């Protein structure tokens, strides 16, 4: 990291529709290692929010513990952030979301945070279809505790210390699919052109939007033999398609070759334009997505891009049938039954 923030800003930075320049979306200076994949993901979040014209204070950023979980400090400094405890961000996010359905919730997690200690909470956040963007910064190791293998480390991957991981990896994207997630994507911190539209689509998704991002740990897991190193990932990425997120009522900016292109429309008329599609993969079929992941895995490839999207999703508030007003805005008048009602309750106990 560099500890002096470059003061100089180009005076003519472009403003978005809200009149904010991109630096309005930044956070505190990162204290992660120079080159850490996680910083690129933070940058992608900044870019996506800026381009989506989001009011930063209408965002809440939640995380667990780990290098990845530190990232909320490094973007959107006008948002409230909550760096909770290791592996338990999903429950904190659930409570927060139930309290106020109107904010945008970013959950930033690591593979240790979500696939080990947080596995139970991850599974149940998916099951509840909590509306949030859930990003796992997947580096196959425990960065902050100095490089132990995580549960997403591939079998046979060599750590910096030279040891050979002997356990099967947990495939977070496949798991989310199996558990019924309606938005599942996979990406690579080194591929901003793919990551930014995915984040935008995730923000717009009306339920649990999961993005598993391979994000190399330059300090502990970027060595030869590691299957989560920059070089390895770059060589083994296999994109389902290239992707564009097109907001509602925006004009179509590109025209695509019909044969290999597909449009997935979201609930509000925005859509995801996919082109150069993988053969025999249908982003709107869960089964096809699962098969595609498994087949890629068998080929030793990492399938990236949008894997599955069901825009007919129904989130937790829908399931619980809560009122449209955020619960945290209800006051005594809304919530407190009268003394008279209490008297009739008393009577029922006589």
């Amino acid at each position, binding site marked *: 990291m560099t500890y002096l923030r470059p003061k100089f800003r180009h005076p003519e930075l472009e403003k978005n529709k809200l009149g904010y320049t991109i630096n309005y979306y930044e956070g505190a200076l990162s204290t992660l290692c120079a080159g850490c994949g996680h910083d690129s993901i933070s940058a992608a979040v900044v870019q996506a929010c800026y381009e989506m014209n989001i*009011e*930063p*204070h*209408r965002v*809440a950023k*939640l995380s667990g513990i780990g290098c990845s979980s530190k990232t*909320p*400090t490094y973007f959107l*400094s*006008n*948002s*409230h*952030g*909550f*760096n*909770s*405890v290791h592996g*338990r961000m*999903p*429950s*904190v996010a*659930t*409570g*927060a*979301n*139930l*309290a*106020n359905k*109107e*904010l945008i919730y970013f959950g930033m997690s690591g593979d240790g945070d979500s696939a080990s200690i947080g596995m*139970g*909470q991850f*599974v*149940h956040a998916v099951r*509840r279809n909590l509306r949030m963007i859930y990003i796992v910064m997947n580096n196959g190791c425990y960065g902050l505790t100095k490089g132990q293998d995580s549960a997403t480390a591939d079998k046979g991957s060599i750590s910096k210390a030279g040891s050979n991981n002997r356990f099967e990896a947990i495939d977070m994207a496949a798991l989310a699919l199996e558990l019924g997630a309606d938005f599942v994507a996979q990406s690579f911190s080194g591929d901003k052109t793919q990551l930014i539209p995915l984040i935008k689509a995730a923000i717009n998704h009306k339920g649990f939007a999961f993005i598993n991002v391979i994000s190399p740990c330059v300090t502990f897991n970027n060595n030869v033999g590691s299957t989560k190193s920059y070089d390895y990932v770059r060589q083994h990425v296999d994109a389902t398609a290239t992707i564009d997120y097109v907001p509602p009522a925006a004009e179509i900016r590109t025209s695509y070759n019909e044969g290999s292109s597909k449009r997935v429309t979201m609930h509000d008329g925005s859509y995801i334009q996919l082109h150069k599609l993988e053969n025999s993969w249908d982003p709107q079929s869960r089964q096809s997505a699962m098969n595609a992941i498994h087949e890629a895995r068998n080929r030793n490839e990492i399938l990236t891009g949008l894997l599955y999207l069901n825009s007919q999703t129904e989130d*937790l*508030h829908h399931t*619980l*049938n*809560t*009122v*449209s007003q955020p*619960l*945290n805005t*209800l*006051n*005594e008048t*809304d*919530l*407190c*039954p*009268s*003394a008279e*009602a*209490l*008297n009739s*309750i*008393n009577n029922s*106990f*006589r």
Partner: protein
Amino acid sequence: MTETPKINDFVIRFANVNGTGSASANFLFTKAIYRMGIPVSPKNIFPSNIQGLPTWYEVRVSEKGYLARRDGIDIVVCVNPQSMANDVKSVRSGGYFLYDNTKMLYQQFIREDIHYIGIPLTKLCNEAFTDARQQQLFKNIAYVGALSVLLSIEFNVFEDLLAEQFKGKEKLIPFNIKALNLGADYIKENYNYPLPLRLERRNLIGNKIMVDGNTACGIGAVYAGATVVSWYPITPSTSVIEAFEEYSSKLRKVKESGENKVAIVQAEDELAAIGMVIGANWNGARSFTATSGPGLSLMNEFLGLAYFAEIPAVLIDVQRTGPSTGMPTRTQQSDVLEAAYASHGDTKHILLFPSTPTECFDLTAESFDLAEQLQTPVILLTDLDLGMNDHICEPFNWDNSRKFKRGKVLHAEDLEKIERFGRYLDVDNDGITYRTYPGTHPTKGSYFTRGTSRDEYAVYTEDGAAYERNMRRLSKKWETAKNMVPAPHFYQKENKSKFGIIFFGTSRYACEEAIDIMNNQGVMLDAMRLLSFPFSQQVHDFINSHEQVFVVEQNRDAQLRSLMLIEMNIVPQKLVSILNFDGMPLTAEKVISEVDKVLKKELSQLN
């Protein structure tokens, strides 16, 4: 049956098999006594299983209004052959044993010193009903009918109760009446009645209600405006949430749309439950969870986060017999120490100790105010006895003009007036700082919440001095809390003894009775009932002004006494423990005998 009659003063125990529908018959019995204006107090002693094991329902009737459990069972109603051997033993000498004599009693169950009242319940019901389920079910109603004659329960009270119970299903009433009569008639035909132990209508109940503590907690949370509730099932706390859910669905549904002004989530475990509560409170919604011992243990890490990051949270811990899974269907007050200091590092939590359903209602409502005002977890410690048994208590009361005390929260307008918002800046010098809800203001008021150390502006720091300042401020907040938590209840205007007695929660019933009895015997004790932790100056003063103070608790390790020693620098010899920890609610006899031991010793030292 030559005993002189004893009116409105006995203990009766029903020995049933769980899952056979005895609960509603037994409740009918108790409710009838309540309706006759007589103080009555039932205890359910049930196994940790669902069906087929012995279960007991013990009812004490007390003209004097003593509502504690009492040893020495006057009447046993036994319809469970499984437990009969022990049930026969459990009757006090001279007492009554009512049983189903469809089959003959084993010879070894015959005692010389008790009275046997055999009723052919099975036979009667098999003859009177055709449906097998009814034959089974109405045996229970039939013995209630028998008791109505034996104990002089007014029959029309039953009729009223059944009419209320079966509103909308009126055709079930005649069956019940028939079953009552089966038992009643059999007694009338075969035995002298009523028994010397019997009931007489009184007017001792006033406007009091009969309800369990968990229901009261659930209603309290509705009134307090809890909107986000997360929980994981565990006996004996489950019914807190069930009650909250029931009353929410009655009182918090938008009529037109059926939408809910509440979100209730069954979590995947207790870690998630408290995590959701913390997330919701952080985001400005009143939120709580309920659990019992094992769940509390699992919440340790999160409770430490809430303490240190200063997030309100309300946790209702309905204590059961520990440690570990222990006896999940027995009562105890043994989570006190764990709750007070839950989590690693230097942590302390606010505790509230309700003793009646009325207090469950009041203190639940208050716990939300305290949690938000103090920005810290508040743990309501109730127990199985209070939570799952019915108690006669004052009706619930609510002032329509009451406002939620939401504590120090800055809104957009407030932030506009502030130069720089310092989330952990002790502006008012009381240790309590100002917070903002997420989403309040575009450029002011955002901050980062974390379990790591930070400075007054919520900026991460590893500076030892900043860390220490923050920890000292938290101690100051603790001092502030002492004057905010509910004050202890004193039983005398002025102290009149060198002996004091301190108790809390459900020990109240036995202690009040013990004090009363001892008083009548000329032994004076000044009494203080604690409602909260930390301890205020009043608590210090009470202890300081007595030579010897009894501390009554329902655990092995004198956990409340431990808190007193730690927090108040009391000379330990001053505090004499009275401990009850076998899982059964405390009795006055136990308290009296323990006090006696000390007094006798003192007397013998004088001689």
